[in-house]
């Protein structure tokens, strides 16, 4: 759309800018302050330079948490994106079932995150939960409070349960926006289903898939509440992701300096990866 140059438009964005600035810049500066200072309590601070950053970037604990985080995010993206795409392709396009499907599928998205954790906790209890009892009855040894493998599987299945619907809804919206004429043309040309998918649906879905991957990447990188309620980061440290580790350091041990330095590194990682991905995907598009 052609836009008019109008500097007065700044007045329209002023409320948003002031609100977000209050919420983002003040806390961010607090974090930056802590990250370069040392304190012994009583609000006395000393300049510490980049000491905390060095400590964080060299610590094995941070590396381990980052690795777990990358494994988690990679796994759920590899499952949720294709699965969401397949489900969206198989969904009905019209008729009364569309609403039923959409409402039921959107349900997990609106459950508070701690309830999601609690729900899966109850479901996966080895002795009295449906999932835990069922898996054990099938002859597999399963106990998510003791075995890291079980804990990982539970956290991943929980995330797939919780968020695949977001991918489905996005892809479905993208599919619905393809005009019928495209399909008719494909039919006239005698295109096979695979060709229709590859040359009509997939290119049209590129934008919504970008949004889906970005949102799932950002949100899974920040995963906190569900995993804490389900496993508490355990057993041991096996499901301690970045956010969980950060909260442990900041609010548990009250090590403000290292926690703040870690926050900044963490934020920068999310920002850089989102930016790289966004630029790669949008290279050929005009915005």
């Amino acid at each position, binding site marked *: 759309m052609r836009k008019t140059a*109008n500097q007065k438009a700044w007045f329209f964005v002023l409320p948003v800018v002031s609100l977000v600035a209050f919420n983002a810049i003040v806390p961010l500066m607090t974090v930056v302050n802590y990250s370069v200072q040392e304190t012994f309590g009583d609000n006395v601070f000393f300049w510490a330079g980049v000491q905390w950053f060095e400590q964080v970037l060299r610590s094995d604990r941070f590396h381990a948490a980052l690795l777990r985080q990358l494994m988690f995010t990679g796994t759920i993206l590899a499952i949720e994106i294709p699965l969401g795409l397949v489900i969206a392709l198989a969904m*009905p396009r019209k008729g009364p079932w569309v609403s039923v499907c959409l409402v039921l599928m959107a349900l997990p*998205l609106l459950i*508070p995150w701690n309830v999601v954790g609690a729900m899966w906790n109850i*479901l996966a209890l080895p002795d009295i939960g449906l999932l835990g009892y069922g898996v054990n009855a099938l002859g597999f040894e399963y106990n998510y409070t003791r075995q890291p493998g079980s804990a990982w599987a539970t956290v991943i299945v929980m995330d797939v349960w919780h968020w695949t619907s977001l991918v489905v809804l996005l892809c479905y919206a993208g599919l619905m926006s393809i005009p019928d004429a495209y399909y008719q043309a494909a039919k006239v040309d005698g295109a096979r289903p695979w060709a229709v998918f590859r040359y009509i649906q997939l290119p049209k879905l590129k934008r919504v898939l970008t949004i889906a991957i970005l949102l799932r990447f950002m949100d899974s990188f*920040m995963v*906190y509440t569900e995993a804490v309620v389900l496993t508490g980061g355990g057993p041991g440290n096996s499901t301690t992701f970045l956010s969980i580790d950060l909260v442990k350091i900041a609010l548990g041990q009250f090590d403000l300096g290292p926690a703040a330095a870690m926050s900044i590194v963490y*934020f920068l990682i999310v920002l850089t990866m989102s930016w790289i991905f966004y630029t790669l995907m949008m290279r050929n598009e005009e915005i």
Partner: protein
Amino acid sequence: MRRAGWLIPTLYIVFLLLPIYWLLAMSFKTTNEILGGFTLWPRDFTLDNYAKIFTDSTWYSGYINSLIYVGVNTAISVAVALPAAYAFSRYRFLGDKHLFFWLLTNRMAPPAVFALPFFQLYSAVGLFDTHIAVALAHTLFNVPLAVWILEGFISSVPKELDETAYVDGYPFWRFFIRIFMPTIAAGIGVACFFCFMFSWVELLLAKTLTSVAAKPIAAVMTRTASTSGYELGLLAAAGSLTIVPGAFVIYFVRNYIAKGFALGRV
């Protein structure tokens, strides 16, 4: 393929509903039955867990607190996002692209990073443990999202509408409220839905910014879980009730959910 097409969504929905069924089933069981062993459905059907929640004020005030700050947050987010989205969609101005990207970066900020600074900031301005504090804190990620969604919807309205209204002599604000807002009503609905959703489900910030007076239901649940030991039935009942407002909201916007996603622009 066509004939088996219904199978995949059906299996997926069954998978989605299983944990919800289990939560509901638990909420109707007595503590004795839960701890007694595995039962597929409630044998001693009881409503005691729900009765406790509706009569104990620490429980039901949690729901009221949550609904208040979610409502306030949705109202603030959409109200400030509307003019901004209009500006981003219609005008070019100094730094517009940078500003848009900066707004979106706030959606990428992990709440865990902001928990402690938020606590200090809102304590310093005397808003700690108020509904407005949580509502304002949640605008951090809801305002960027609302701007993004609304911008998509506004861009799909042809500019001729604005110009015709201008030629007809409508003052800008009257045009905006009387003509423009009804035109993008679906977009406003979708934006409200997303603000409601992300504010309703968030716990970390809501818990950090409240202690007693504005304690959200999610925090009541986690504190109960840790203090009263193993009252799983009560916890399940409280959890089941948190699904209700969400289900209600989805039902109202069901026809717009899919559309809202498609029009949003990265």
